[in-house]
Each structure stands twice: as structure tokens, then as C-alpha cells.
């Protein structure tokens, strides 16, 4: 088991390195394909009065005139030892380790900004995850047990709608109805940190949670239903019933447990993805999380921020994958040997 975990850890690190190289390559190569030079890239950060020498100094100080692999190595190294940038401003700029990049537009290191926004994204992701897990799975189980009934058809119809409707539409419509029409929920952007007031925190996130959960619940309901239908047809379920077990025990202990295995897998990945930034939900509800940070960075062409976001998000996905792999190995020993 230890060897398996070490193997998976090594694979996770390798994945992150590959992702970072590809991302860095995109940000390095695309501007150059469009005709950008080290100087033209540096000219964004030096102000309008800079002369050609100052621009060249900045290009050199930022390392923009170095080859791709040297620049990548500098970036990678900064994660462990930090980095000093020169040529931009009268004094050198220090980005302390772990340095995921330095925004010369915002004039601050990227990582503290991302960490500052992580609680918002985590609040959104975990709250919504609990709701969609409870509603999605229970709806799926009931639909499977009442297959063909009106409830089943209605639930699957709603689930199809939930999957199909984009969150920027359901989000805005629900804001108009529940926040501005009925005044039941908080308006967009009304986020209260949990440490300030837990009640307000939950109330301010209620609508984003429900809207986001609607999207995911739908998929989980369909997945659970399919799994339950398959499981409940198995021989061992018949055996359990033949033993005289109560139907509730048959469903929960024998049927649902087996059907939940793929749900656990996808749940881990979904939460990992959301922790890396629920871009559309945060933008729709004006929540200052990591996803909103990424959108703002893209809109302002702040490449160090975008790069930092991509690596951070990729990290969450890779960690989620790792956890899922380990959990799988615990559930099914055959995986360890594969």
C-alpha cells in the first residue's frame, strides 16, 4: 500500500510539472507568435515615460529575454526559493517563496491573493457539495426504487433540466426572483465570512449553494439511479431479501453501498474542480473567490495571475485524483496491484 501511494504521489507531481510546462509554454509562445518581443512584453510594466533602454532593462530584469527553458526554470525555482525582479520600478521587487508568480499590474505576489480568496471558494464548494450529495443521491435512490412512477419521471425530467441549464442563467434568474422579487435571499455579492457571523455566512451563500447544487444534483441523481437499478438487480440483493432482511436494510446496506462507489469517485473530482475555482458561479453571484480572481486576471491580461491560478487549480484536481485513487485502493485491493 505504501509503495502504491508513493507511486501515485510521484505521478501527481509529474502531472503538475507537465501541466505547468504546458501552461507556461502557452503563455510564453502565444505572445511571441503574435509578434511580441521581450521588449514589447516588458513595455506593459514600465509606464508611459520609459525610454528604449529602460524597457530593455525591464525585459532583462524580468527574464523575458531568456530562452523558454531558462524562464521556466526560473519560475519553477521561485516556488521553492522565491525570486527578485529588477528593472520594474526604482527598487527590486521580491516575491517570497512559495512564489507562484508576481503581478506587475496589481503589484503583489499571486499566491497570497489566491489564498485570501480560497475561503470563499471553499465555502461555496463544500456547502453546495453537501446539498447536491444529499438531494442528488436520495432522488436517485427513490427514482430507482419507484422506477417508471410519476415521481421517477418528474425527478429525471427536473434532473435533465438541471444539467442542461447553464448556471449563469439559473443564477441570474434566481437572483431576480428570490433576492429582488421575493427578498428571501441575499443579493449578489453579499458574502459574509464564516468567522464574522456563521448565520449570515450561510444565509449569504444559500442561493449560490442551491443554484450550484441544482446543476450537480441532477447529474448525481441520474448516476445514482442508474447504479441502483443495476445493483438492485444483482443476485446478492435477491439473496439478502430471501434471508428475510428488511427492505430498508437491503436498500441501504447492500444496494446503495455498492452503487455509491462510482459516486464517491466523481464526488472527489467535482469537489477538487470546484475548489480550483467555480468560475461561472462566482462571477454570476459576484463572490470574490478564486474563479472570479481568474476571470478578472484574464480580463486584465494579467498573465502571472492566470498562470498562478492554473497551477493552483490543477493542484486541487491532482490532489483530488490522488485521494480518489487511494480510497479506491482501500475499497478494492485489486487496484493496488494494477
Amino acid at each position: 500500500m505504501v509503495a502504491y501511494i508513493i507511486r501515485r504521489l510521484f505521478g501527481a507531481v509529474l502531472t503538475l510539472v507537465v501541466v505547468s510546462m504546458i501552461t507556461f509554454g502557452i503563455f510564453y509562445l502565444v505572445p511571441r507568435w503574435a509578434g511580441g518581443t521581450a521588449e514589447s512584453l516588458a513595455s506593459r510594466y514600465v509606464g508611459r515615460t520609459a525610454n528604449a533602454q529602460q524597457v530593455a532593462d525591464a525585459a532583462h530584469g524580468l527574464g523575458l529575454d531568456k530562452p523558454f527553458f531558462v524562464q521556466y526554470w526560473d519560475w519553477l525555482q521561485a516556488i521553492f526559493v522565491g525570486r527578485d525582479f529588477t528593472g520594474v520600478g526604482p527598487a527590486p521587487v521580491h516575491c517570497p517563496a512559495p512564489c507562484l508568480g508576481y503581478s506587475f499590474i496589481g503589484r503583489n505576489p499571486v499566491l497570497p491573493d489566491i489564498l485570501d480568496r480560497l475561503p470563499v471558494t471553499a465555502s461555496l464548494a463544500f456547502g453546495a457539495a453537501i446539498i447536491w450529495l444529499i438531494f442528488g443521491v436520495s432522488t436517485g435512490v427513490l427514482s430507482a426504487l419507484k422506477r417508471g412512477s410519476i415521481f421517477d419521471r418528474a425527478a429525471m425530467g427536473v434532473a435533465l433540466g438541471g444539467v442542461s441549464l447553464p448556471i449563469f442563467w439559473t443564477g441570474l434568474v434566481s437572483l431576480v426572483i428570490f433576492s429582488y422579487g421575493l427578498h428571501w435571499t441575499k443579493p449578489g455579492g453579499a458574502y459574509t465570512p464564516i468567522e464574522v457571523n456563521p448565520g449570515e455566512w450561510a444565509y449569504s451563500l444559500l442561493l449560490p449553494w442551491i443554484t450550484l447544487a441544482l446543476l450537480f444534483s441532477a447529474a448525481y441523481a441520474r448516476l445514482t439511479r442508474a447504479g441502483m437499478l443495476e445493483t438492485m438487480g444483482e443476485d446478492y440483493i435477491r439473496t439478502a431479501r430471501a434471508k428475510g432482511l428488511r427492505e430498508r436494510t437491503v436498500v441501504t446496506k447492500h444496494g446503495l453501498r455498492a452503487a455509491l462507489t462510482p459516486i464517491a469517485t466523481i464526488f472527489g473530482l467535482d469537489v477538487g474542480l470546484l475548489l480550483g475555482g467555480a468560475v461561472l458561479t462566482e462571477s454570476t453571484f459576484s463572490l470574490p473567490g478564486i474563479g472570479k480572481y481568474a476571470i478578472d486576471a484574464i480580463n486584465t491580461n494579467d498573465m502571472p495571475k492566470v498562470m498562478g491560478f492554473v497551477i493552483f487549480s490543477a493542484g486541487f484536481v491532482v490532489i483530488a485524483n490522488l485521494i480518489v485513487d487511494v480510497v479506491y485502493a482501500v475499497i478494492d485491493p485489486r487496484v493496488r496491484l494494477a
Partner: protein
Amino acid sequence: MKRRMVTGVAVGVAAALALAACGGGGTDSNTDSSGGGTTTAAFDAANGKVFNPSDKKGGTMKFAISSDWDSVDPGDTYYGLSWNLARLYTRSLTMFKVGAGSTSSELTGDLAEGLGVPSDGGKTWTYKLRQGLKFEDGTPITSKDVEYGVSRSLEKSALVNGPTYFNDFLDLKGYKGPYSSKGQDNPAIDTPDDLTIVFHLNKPFGGFDYFAQIPATAPVPVAKDTGVKYKEHVVSSGPYKFESYEAGKGFKLVRNDQWDQSTDPNRKALPDGYDVTIGANADDIDNQIIDGSLDVDIAGTGVQPAALSRVLGQPDLKARADNPLSARLNYTSINPNVGPLKNIECRKAVEYAADRTTYQTAYGGPEAGGEIATGLLPPQIPGFQKLDVWSMGADNKGDLDKAKAALQACGQPNGFETNIAYRAERPKEKATAEALQQSLARVGIKLTLKPFPTGDYFSLYAGKPSYRDQNNLGLMLNSWGADWNDGFGFLSQIVDGRVIRDTGGSSNLSVNVPEINTMVDQAIAETDTAKRDALWGAIDKRVMEEAVILPGVWAKQVTVRSTRTTNVFVNDAYGMYDFLAMGIQ
């Protein structure tokens, strides 16, 4: 160019990365005589007059914006909304009067007792500060604090965002600023005593009072200056101070108890504070203002398309809307250095053949887009004259007969081919390029659309002379807003050929005429306001005669007033609601 927010299209993150009116003024039936305004809700009720005048104090004003601007540091900002907002927590030497209509384009003293006193033919300007001015910590504000504020704003390698007027016009003699020229005194600024500040220029400039209203003249205490981090702890000299500041998220302003009303005849400081949210969803901002849970969209660029039809279509909402004209021109630069466009007759053909109505429609129509422009200077800028240099034809749809005659004279009777450049992320520019493509095709001028990324449009493509000439960019969509409402503030950066740089970056893409450059010099040196305004008007006409600019629309937008606000009016200087005057009812 003082910048304004441009609503961007939401950008999705790649899956691969994730895996890894009707117009008309409002009725003044219920006019408040004390404020000269109206309390009757009507379309345009706050445009040119004060809506809901009141002196009631208290309450917290709620502001929001969809995307962050450059900085709240007064020495590092170039957004109109930011200059409007900075008056809450800083005071500059002069300021625009707080009043509706043309009043808001007039200057008055702020920190200074009055406007500057010129001497030496306009090369020296002296200001006298008011007595009793204090920072938020109670420290007296002296002329040295103002000098330091201006000096630090010269440091463009650190404070990159602000305008460069002081860099360009002060007689700095090699001085670069307090960070780069450590220990040196700024030779262009004298402070003979704590209440007097004298600016020495490298050339006469009659409009220096406009420079003195830039937020960079706000005082900054040397000991509190943290360079690029100063934006996180701006020291207040105005009626409000920062209670909190979170970069990219928002900030809160509360009353500054060291601000003394008796030293400030321009501010009423009605609300107790301001909550500013940065990064709110643009559509949600509109919904919240309509609902009454938000007071102002400080971007000031008008409601989003999703709310526009609702606002204009519902009488109760339309009565809460205004349709101000901005001092902004959306236009097309005609490159006189490529192909047939080197010949003025071919450029004239473009002017004649363009359908201005489709240009206007592409920008959003008469209300949300703007008014069809006849020249460069917008109507609210002194010196404006309604020009008719090139016929727009019946109903502004183009004069095809004259266009064909011009093509004949150009030696291109069947038309010619060229490219039209625009910013890819701006749907209105794309629509305009397509509209011009269709309207010019009527006389055989064939345009090929060339989109470029917004961020590099001026630095690498349209703004770089070698690129635009080598790639046959004959027409280039452009947009320009006034730094302030006078000829210099609007025209100097787009008609003076000497601002064009080989390395790119200038917004002047097509105007480089020695005669016009000389006219600009004359206008800059003129200290008589009326004569100066007339000179800028003449420059506007002369540029049009060169047919190097095709004017499109003077921008307008539809904005909505909150149900809670008092003293609402459009400030002509900023082209948006005046943040300083508003209160909560």
C-alpha cells in the same frame, strides 16, 4: 486619455486547463428652489439639473463596479470614475465645481484658495493653500505635502498608471522623482512657505489649472508613502478616509473627523460612509440598482444590454433613467500612409461613402450608443462647432455621388481594397467594422476585417506605425475620451503628430500634419480662455479637412438612478453621476 471601463465579454476558462427614448427633459413641476432641481422622476431628470435635491446627512452609500480600475492612489490613477471618486478621500489644488450642467466643467480652488496665478508668460503658476487643512491623523497639510504628491507621481516606472502631464510640462532639469532622484529637491516646484506652491514649466501653458485638478496634486505625507503599496493605505485629506481596503474586492470609506467643513466650500459630505464593491456581476449591478439595494454603478458606462430594453420599455423605470452625453468620440482613423489612401481624394471617398446611421446602430443606437458626430470635439467642450466638412448625405446614410466623384479624382473609379482593424474583444467595434464594410462596398471600397487583441492594439498593431503601414491597415477603429472638458484635454493626444512613437503605444493613429502641430503649440501657449477655445475649434476643423479621421458617434449611455439617492446629477467633467454630491434620503 482618461480611461473608462469597457464591459468585457465573460471569458470561459479552457477545459484543458481546468482538467489539468424618447428623450425629452423632465418636467420641473416640483422644482426645489433651494437646489435648482426637481423631485419629479422623469427621463433625464438628473441630466443638466439636480434630481431630488436635499441636504439630509447620514446613511451609507452603496457603490459597485464589475471590474477593478487602476488604483485608488491619487498619484497613480487615470480613470474618470477614479478621479470622480478620489474627491471623497483626497483634495487636489483645484477641482471642478460641484454642480449640474456646464457648472461641473468650471474650475475652482480646492486645497488652493482659488485658481492659479500665472506669470512669466504662463511658464510659472502660483497657488495659495487654504489655512487649517489637515490629514486624517491631524497633521497640518502644507505646500511641501502637495509638492511631494506631485513629485512621486513623476515616478512612472513605479506608479505607471497616471497621466504624464507633469512629466511633460514641468521644468524638471533631469529630476525623476523622490524614489529615483533620492535626496534631490524637485527643481520645478518651489514652496517658499507652508501655504504657497509655485510650479515652473518648461514651456508656457495657459491651462495649468486643469493640471492642478488632477488627483496627483493631492497631498501625500512623505513618511506615509509606501510607493506602489500606498494604495493600500491612502492618507485622507478629504471628508472621508479608508476604514478598510481589499485589493480587487472593495473598500469602505468612513467620515474623516479631521476634515473641516469651514475649509471646504465645495463638499457637503452628506452620507456617513461608502461601501464600494469591486468585481460584482455587471447584470446583477443593474438588477440591484433597479431593486434599490445598490445606489450607483461607478463605472458610469450605462446599463447592460440585458437591462436596457427593460429600462427603456417600462415607464416607471424609464422615469428613473438618464441619457447623458459623454465627452468621448468613437471614431475611425484613416491611415494616410498606405495604398490609395495616401491620396486625400480616396480618403474623402471614405468620408462620403460611410453610412453614419449604421455606425450609430453598431454602437447601440441613439440612446445607448451615441449621437452622430460631425467632428472631433464633443458638444460640451468649449470651442465646439457643428462642422459640415464632408457631406453625410440625406439622413446621414452617406453621399454616394460625391464618394464616386472623389474616387474618380483619386484615380480609383472602381474603388480599392484595404484592411480595417478593430479590437477583437469589443463587439461594438466589430459591428462597426462590418457596418463600414457594407457601406463602403456601395462605392467599390472593399474592406477586409482585421481583429487584434485589445491589450496589444496600440502597442503592437494599430498603434505601431511600422506594423500598420506594412500590413495595409487603412482604417482603424478608435475611441477617445477627454481628460477634461477643454480643447487640450480632448484633442492634444489625438491630433498632435509628435505624440506618435515609432515604438508604438500612441492613440494618434493617423494625424501628423506640421501645420496642425503648430496650431496645437499656439493653443497650448494661449492664456486667454476664449481665444484658446477658438483655436482648438479651428484645429478640430483643420483635422477634419485632412480626412484622416472619420467621426462616428459621441458616446451616450443609459444610466439608472437608485430610489434612495438625493442630489443626483450628471457631472459633465466626468460624464457620469457626481459621486461627491449624492446623499441618502
